[in-house]
């Protein structure tokens, strides 16, 4: 029998649990709204390295090793590492995996990588292919800026619809234990493109993908938005989250106060980030700190995490293509039913 509901949703019968998590962010994010929730805030985002790419890799490695110790397990018990980032050929993840010596899958889902890695990891644990898996991702402002936009010292103005790439990493360890937060189900998104080509307005480009995945999730599972205490999107930003609510209402789903967006909440208003944060690290760092800690306290019981990713490159943009986007949804719940053995 297939462990699926509807067209796109996977159901994890054995309930993989979140056994450990860690987040590390840069100084600007530390001064933002979630500063006190992150496990570690760096004072210098170069992190003692010679380049921002090396710093990104070191931060990711730190997040993974600290998450493993948070889970109180041995590195050898981690049977697979699922990681990805924004750099070309996902160098940050692969270089971090090189020094860790853990079986490794490199993933690319742009900013949706946190959800993508959680889904892949949950499948492995649920299917009995791994005792523990590490699901990690992150991004770095300075290396992303260099790869996707302009040199840091170029004197240009950022457009008002732009978002700020988050310097932050997050890692979740999933395992087959009896208590804690469990991954209940996940909805795999399709690539959606509604013709937005403005790279300074990624939120708007990713909204149709998020809507598509949310719709599929609610159709497949028969749940409604009200069944969740928190519906959290990855990095749609201020404009994107307004558009998402409009699109969902247009599709007949009224989402109320239980909706939030990591990008919109990451920075405070004095930090001049316009529409808020973006990047893999945006959702990853908030999920692995704030969301899990509130769930562990019992303040949140059912959380739907929808990470959205814009799947373009500088080459595709320069060749005039619009921005294809994807969104994956992961449903977390606290307690839930006892594990089927």
């Amino acid at each position, binding site marked *: 029998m297939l462990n699926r509901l509807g067209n796109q949703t996977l159901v994890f019968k054995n309930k993989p649990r979140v056994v450990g998590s860690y987040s590390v962010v*840069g100084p600007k994010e530390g001064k933002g709204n979630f500063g006190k929730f992150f496990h570690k805030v760096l004072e210098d985002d170069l992190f003692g390295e010679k380049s921002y790419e090396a710093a990104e890799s070191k931060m990711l490695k730190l997040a993974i090793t600290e998450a493993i110790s948070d889970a109180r397990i041995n590195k050898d018990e981690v049977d697979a590492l699922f990681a990805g980032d924004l750099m070309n050929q996902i160098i940050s993840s692969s270089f971090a995996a090189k020094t860790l010596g853990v079986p490794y899958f490199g993933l690319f889902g742009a900013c949706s990588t946190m959800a993508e890695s959680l889904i892949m990891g949950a499948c492995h644990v649920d299917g009995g292919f791994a005792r523990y898996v590490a699901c990690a991702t992150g991004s770095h*402002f*300075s290396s992303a800026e260099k790869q996707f936009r302009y040199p840091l010292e*170029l004197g*240009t103005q950022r*457009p008002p619809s732009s978002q700020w790439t988050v310097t932050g990493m997050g890692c979740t360890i999933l395992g087959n234990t009896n208590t804690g937060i469990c991954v209940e189900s996940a909805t795999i998104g399709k690539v959606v493109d509604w013709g937005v080509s403005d790279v300074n307005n990624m939120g708007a480009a990713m909204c149709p993908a998020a809507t598509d995945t949310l719709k599929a999730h609610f159709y497949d599972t028969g749940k409604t938005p009200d069944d969740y205490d928190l519906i959290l999107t990855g990095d749609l930003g201020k404009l994107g989250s307004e558009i998402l609510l409009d699109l969902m209402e247009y599709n007949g789903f009224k989402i109320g106060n239980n909706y939030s967006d990591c990008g919109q909440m990451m920075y405070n208003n004095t930090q001049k980030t316009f529409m808020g944060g973006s990047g893999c690290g945006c959702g990853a760092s908030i999920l692995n700190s704030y969301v899990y800690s509130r769930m562990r306290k019992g303040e949140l019981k059912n959380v739907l995490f929808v990470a959205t990713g814009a799947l373009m490159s500088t080459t595709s943009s320069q060749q005039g293509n619009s921005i294809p986007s994807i969104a994956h949804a992961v449903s977390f719940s606290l307690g839930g039913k006892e594990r089927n053995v």
Partner: protein
Amino acid sequence: MFDPIMYLKVFAIGGLVCMIGQILIITTKMTSARILVSFLLFGVVLEAFGWFEPIRDFAGAGISVPIIGFGASLARGAIDAGNVTGLLGVFTGGLTTVAGGLAAAIFAGYVFGLIFSSRTKK
């Protein structure tokens, strides 16, 4: 020299040129490379029609400091050298007149690039 009226004209015309650039950025979402290219071309056109000279006599650095002046010098050089040495001058003239600025920019970029590194934005 040190004529206050002249400085007023420099400020007004120079400011106006930059303001036109800003209007272009806001309305067309042009990137800085495109802004530089279009103003440079505008300077070449001004010089080609002989309109740059009178504007510079009026506004001085107000028109020669913007990249328009760089374009005008390129065109002026090609035209003048072409008159003197013919076809060869057309090719050598343009870069000769702007060689100072170009070399300074490359030299300064190289030296400062060796000494300093970019730092993250706050």
